[in-house]
């Protein structure tokens, strides 16, 4: 064997560039934070001076993290120039992985922009916060390009562990710690299921490489073990995307976790896990796909929407809505690959835009200690802060699926893909659910514009960082609703490549 061939080549590193960039910047933030802390303690006598100094350091750390995420976006473009396999066929760079790399990095940037203000208002020491977001993003990026199930597992753990910690970042709030512990316990349980599934899959097909598994399953008899493997892997991944019946953790965790983090973990890791699911379901040709997805999608849509109907806490409401959206998205997985895959990819992108935006508004409006998170607090927002209310309205309309927003075409593509696969029953369930969903999103709009405020809820000015974050999400949401063609076309390339 040639030793030179065993060593990674330059191109291999290029294919991993975004992950490398994110990790390096994460480490820089961490080291800087530690160094600054050591000096700060020695000097500051008065607490107020120390606090001001802390603020400044945090701002710098945030800025470094932002640069890191922007660098990751750039790195994605570099990476796109080197399509192919890397590191002994464990990583594959194709239009599919590039799509999700870009998505994860963009969400990360927007979330960091939102966090500047949030951290200051909540008075949270934010040093390792930014580092954890970057590490998590590295894990998520890796998930979308990993084609080796063991590597998928490692990437999944990287991303999960950082989100467990992030969920508990409001240290003063008991509810946040509860959220973190709950997420951690159930989450590690779920990843164990995934690992078990991988093991069974290995037993059934003799490989952990997704393409090889696909070849084996396509070629001949499908062993029973493979069904069990798919089901167990799906339990693990279904937990991460909050699909029913693995959704129980979602409302509690979302309620307790800091709002920007919720915006992050309801979009970026979900997108990455959905990418993994796409690979497993379509590229690995998972047996029993349609029946499994049918049930889970119908359950998620129904439970999510019915649950959201009775919520008064806006974070819990959006948590249930995210369960419902996971259901809509899964509908695409039951469709045929050539239009199911692009539909699912389009949905993840538009869902990311509108949901990150919605949570950015929620985190701004929550103010210190996240006091204002009930529906009643939002009453009269249309009068007190017309701009904020109008922005949230557009995100909510997109979540309903009203035309001219990305949410409409997302649903449109998913349902029409399902119709072409003759899944009429599932589409009817989906359409009925969207009608139910319209009601509770509408409730928020009604409260904002048509009810008088019961108490004086202050609304702070929109700071620059948040303004950028909102503008990016808004423009993306509307862009996907007016000109969805380019993104869909890009997503379709994957389907053609995989169909071979």
């Amino acid at each position, binding site marked *: 064997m040639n030793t030179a061939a065993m060593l990674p080549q330059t191109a291999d590193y290029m294919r991993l560039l975004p992950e490398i960039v994110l990790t390096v910047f994460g480490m820089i933030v961490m080291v800087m934070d530690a160094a600054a802390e050591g000096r700060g303690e020695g000097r500051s006598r008065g607490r107020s001076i120390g606090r001001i100094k802390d603020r400044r350091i945090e701002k710098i750390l945030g800025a470094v993290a932002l640069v890191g995420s922007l660098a990751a976006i750039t790195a994605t473009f570099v990476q796109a120039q080197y399509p192919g396999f890397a590191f002994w066929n464990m990583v594959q760079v194709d239009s599919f992985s590039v799509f999700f790399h870009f998505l994860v990095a963009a969400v990360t940037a927007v979330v960091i922009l939102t966090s500047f203000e949030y951290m200051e208002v909540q008075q949270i020491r934010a040093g390792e916060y930014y580092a954890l977001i970057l590490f998590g993003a590295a894990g998520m990026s890796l998930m979308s390009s990993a084609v080796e199930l063991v590597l998928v597992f490692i990437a999944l753990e990287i991303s999960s562990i950082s989100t467990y910690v992030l969920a508990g970042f409001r240290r003063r709030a008991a509810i946040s710690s509860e959220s973190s512990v709950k997420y951690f316990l159930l989450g590690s349980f779920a990843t164990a299921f995934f690992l078990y599934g991988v093991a069974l899959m290995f037993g059934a097909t003799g490989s952990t490489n997704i393409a090889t598994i696909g070849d084996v399953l396509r070629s001949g008899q499908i062993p029973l073990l493979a069904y069990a493997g798919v089901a167990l892997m799906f339990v693990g991944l279904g937990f991460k995307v909050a699909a029913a019946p693995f959704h129980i953790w979602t409302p509690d965790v979302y309620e307790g976790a800091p709002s920007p983090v919720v915006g992050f973990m309801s979009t970026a890791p979900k997108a990455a896990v959905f990418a993994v699911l796409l690979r497993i379901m379509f590229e690995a040709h998972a047996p029993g796909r349609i029946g499994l997805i049918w049930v889970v999608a119908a359950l998620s849509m129904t439970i999510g929407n019915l649950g959201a109907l009775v919520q008064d806490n806006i974070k819990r409401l959006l948590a249930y809505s995210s369960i419902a959206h996971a259901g809509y998205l899964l509908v695409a997985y039951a469709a045929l690959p050539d239009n199911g895959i692009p539909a699912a990819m389009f949905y993840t992108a538009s869902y990311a835009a509108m949901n990150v935006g919605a949570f950015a508004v929620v985190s701004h409006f929550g103010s210190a200690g996240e006091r204002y998170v009930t529906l009643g607090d939002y009453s009269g927002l*249309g009068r007190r802060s017309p701009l904020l209310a109008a922005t949230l309205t557009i995100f909510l309309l997109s979540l309903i699926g*009203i*035309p001219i927003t990305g949410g409409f075409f997302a649903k449109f593509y998913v349902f029409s893909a399902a119709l072409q696969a003759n899944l009429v029953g599932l589409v009817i369930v989906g359409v009925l659910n969207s*009608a139910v969903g319209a009601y509770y999103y*509408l409730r928020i709009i*009604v409260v904002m514009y*048509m*009810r008088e405020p019961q108490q004086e809820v202050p609304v702070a000015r929109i700071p620059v960082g948040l303004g950028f974050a909102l503008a990016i999400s808004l423009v993306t949401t509307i862009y996907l609703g007016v000109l969805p*063609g380019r993104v*869909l076309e890009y997503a379709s390339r994957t389907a053609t490549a995989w169909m071979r």
Partner: protein
Amino acid sequence: MTTALDSTILSLIAFIPLAGALLLLIMPRRDREARWLALGVSIVAFLASLHLPVHLVRSQAGFQFEINRQWISNPNIHYHMGVDGISMWLVVLTTFLTPLCVLISWKSINDRVKEFFIILLVLETALIGVFTALDLFLFYFFWEATLIPMALLIGMYGHGRKVYAAVKFFLYTMIASMFMLAAILWLYAKTGTFDFGSVQAAIRSGQLEGFAAAAPWLFLGFFIAFAVKVPLFPFHTWLPDAHVEAPTAGSVLLAGVLLKMGTYGMLRFNLGLFPEQSRGNAPWIMVLALIGIIYGALVAMVQPNLKKLIAYSSISHLGFVVLGIFSFTQAGLDGATFVMLAHGVSTGALFMLAGILYERRHTYEIAEFGGLAAPMPVYATFFLFIMLASVGLPLLNGFIGEFLVLSGAFRARALYGVLGATGVIWSACYLLWMYQRVFFGKVTHEVNLTLADLDGSERAALWPTAIVALVMGVAPLVWLNAIDPAVRSALSPFTQLASKVVGR
């Protein structure tokens, strides 16, 4: 003769209001300027829309001023707009009423003024889009787009149970239009196009796979969405609530234009795409229309609330329109289109008049008034004039349309004509009785003696409606000679159908 303007004029008319709304958005929050800007923009849109009747080639059936560009490649959606003699007048009606809505809201809207006019202008764009879209998807898009601004107008600026009314309006129409979306998607799946003309051609060719089985459902899918909008009995329950709680400008546009979206949709899509199913379903639809005419009138008669009375009279009048459309006669369809326009003008004006009274007394209860002719003579005169137009007095705009509809209905089935004709009598009853209770007799409430007569902006809003009501009654041919060819081409599949039945 086609000029460059001919292909862009529709986009221009449709998007001038939207541009105005964006301008308002970035403008500083100053109420006076916002009002003037909204008025200016809406008048410009009206003037631009006058290009259509002036340059429409009357002798030519089919769509004119067309523009057709690809918008999205997958799904295959085109930005395709165009008008014929029917939709053209509805566009002009929309642009005509909007400046009047601005005028009538001049003083009555004091809170969140900027937002109000932004919503109003966005609504105007969506309404024009509905009447000009020739791509099914584009149509659906504008159709849904009217929903949000209207619901916001009711919910933000209405009174009383405004939130209830707004949500009811929104949910009713949105759920109904989902059926239409389903039908549109079915057609797209089978034909691969959203284009109205292409879909129509594909259906008429008879080659569409599975169409025979699906057609009744598709017809119903479209019909339910439109019937809720009209509103046809028994889908009408959202209308009184929405009207009573809406601000005046909202009511004017709701009655004047939004209801016509439903009847226009029936005419264009139900008749245009599914002639056989329209023919087959006509009997029960006409019965529902007759129930609407008579039921609406009877309920209007016993209303103690002025605005609710006008709202129920709308249900009655729109019944005439549906009756005319499903009579499948030239006269019936001509009349239906004419009633749409006449009702838009006169009921719009009636709502403005009711709103003027509300501003002075903050009530719509008829019992609170009486003898108003003495303190408000000019107001009383306007009211009388408009009311007579609405009753259907010859030489005013209400008469021609109802007459044509009834003559068409007679030809379809004599009984329908007879029953429909009673509607004219009923409308005279409830409107004249209402007028008597509000304006004649002694002034029973002290406050009414001090009521101010019309002011400048109110007169400015009412004069145009009065003039148009008169002109439409005296010279209906100006309108009808454009409507006629469009109706004839809409009816062409039916004459073929009839000849098939007769066996000629």
